[in-house]
């Protein structure tokens, strides 16, 4: 390494060290014991009907954040499609996969989908949520593409229908948040009755939003993975 770059490395390490020390000292200098936590602690179950209070926050109080976040994901999928789209290779050289991988992948695929459905629909009473559900289902479909080969999967899940599903889910999500406006209520306020906490159909519109997000993240992740596989060949 030339002298210049060794000096540069030293400078980087020293300045990062200072930043880390500075942040730690300043943060731990006076940490209040009873931090004035947000007022979500007690009333969120009654107001949102969701016993999983995290779902209550990001799908009811702060639904606007989740909406913008799903948009970020949608823009990412558009970007991957745009930059990888032109380089697709017609024939995908399938690798001689050992039989063990094929059967185990085929076996795990339905399990992953089942877990995805569970997490998506019961996000308001048990830990789960749309993002995790979509991701689990997408990795399940990736497993299936390993087992059966991408062409087999593409015949059933054609790209255009997947894209239509993704845009449809996002559109319904956007319109649902605007729906209360014509009814005279503030935007993003609750649509469905809350139901009794802990029941399957509780939490007002939260299960609906959760399912929409799961559908959107599943379609989006699969489109990203599909573009990568089309462009780079099988795993």
């Amino acid at each position, binding site marked *: 390494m030339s002298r210049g770059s060794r000096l*540069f*490395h030293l400078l*980087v*390490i020293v300045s*990062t*060290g200072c*930043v*880390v020390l500075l*942040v*730690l000292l300043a*943060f*731990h200098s006076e940490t209040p014991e009873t*931090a004035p*936590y*947000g007022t*979500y*602690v*007690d009333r*969120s*179950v009654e107001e949102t009907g969701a*016993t*999983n*209070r*995290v779902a*209550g*926050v*990001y799908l009811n109080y*702060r639904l606007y*954040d*989740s909406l*913008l*976040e799903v948009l*970020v*994901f949608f*823009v*990412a999928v558009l*970007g*991957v499609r745009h*930059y*990888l789209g032109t*380089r697709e290779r017609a024939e995908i050289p399938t690798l001689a996969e050992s039989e063990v991988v094929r059967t185990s992948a085929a076996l795990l695929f339905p399990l992953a989908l089942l877990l995805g459905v569970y997490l998506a629909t019961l996000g308001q*009473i*048990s*830990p789960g*949520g749309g*993002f995790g559900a979509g991701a689990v289902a997408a990795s399940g479909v990736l497993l299936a593409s390993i087992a059966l080969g991408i062409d087999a999967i593409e015949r059933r899940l054609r790209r255009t229908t997947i894209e239509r599903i993704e845009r449809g889910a996002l559109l319904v999500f956007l319109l649902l948040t605007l729906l209360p406006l014509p009814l005279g209520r503030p935007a993003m306020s609750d649509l469905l009755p809350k139901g009794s*906490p*802990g029941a399957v159909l509780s939490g007002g519109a939260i299960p609906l939003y959760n399912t929409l997000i799961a559908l959107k*993240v599943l379609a989006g992740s699969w489109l*990203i993975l599909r*573009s990568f596989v089309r*462009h*780079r060949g099988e795993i």
Partner: protein
Amino acid sequence: MAFSAGIVLLGIGLVAIAIRRDLVIKLLALGLANAGSILCLVAIGDRPEARVPICAVCRDAVYADPLPQALVLSAIVINFAILALALVFVMRLVEHYHSTDSRRIEGLVQRDLREGGRS
């Protein structure tokens, strides 16, 4: 304590971005830096002997604060989106410049700009 671990991870990530020359390793380091900041955000939501914030009647015990956890869900998915896009860009760069060394690519880009004028 977890907050400190998050800050240390951020530091490691930034050092690796500045030092390692390979673009793929830089992106891994970027993922690490973002994970560090996310760990900080989750860490402040936790409290001594807290419980998981899922409860039908939430009076009797101390619960972890659900808000940071809700914020972090979005942050994780945003980082996934950014990494996926950055990787696609690195793949395009490798196809054109045949190298993933950021210094070499920078040199080639500057030379192309000097020669090619503007468009």
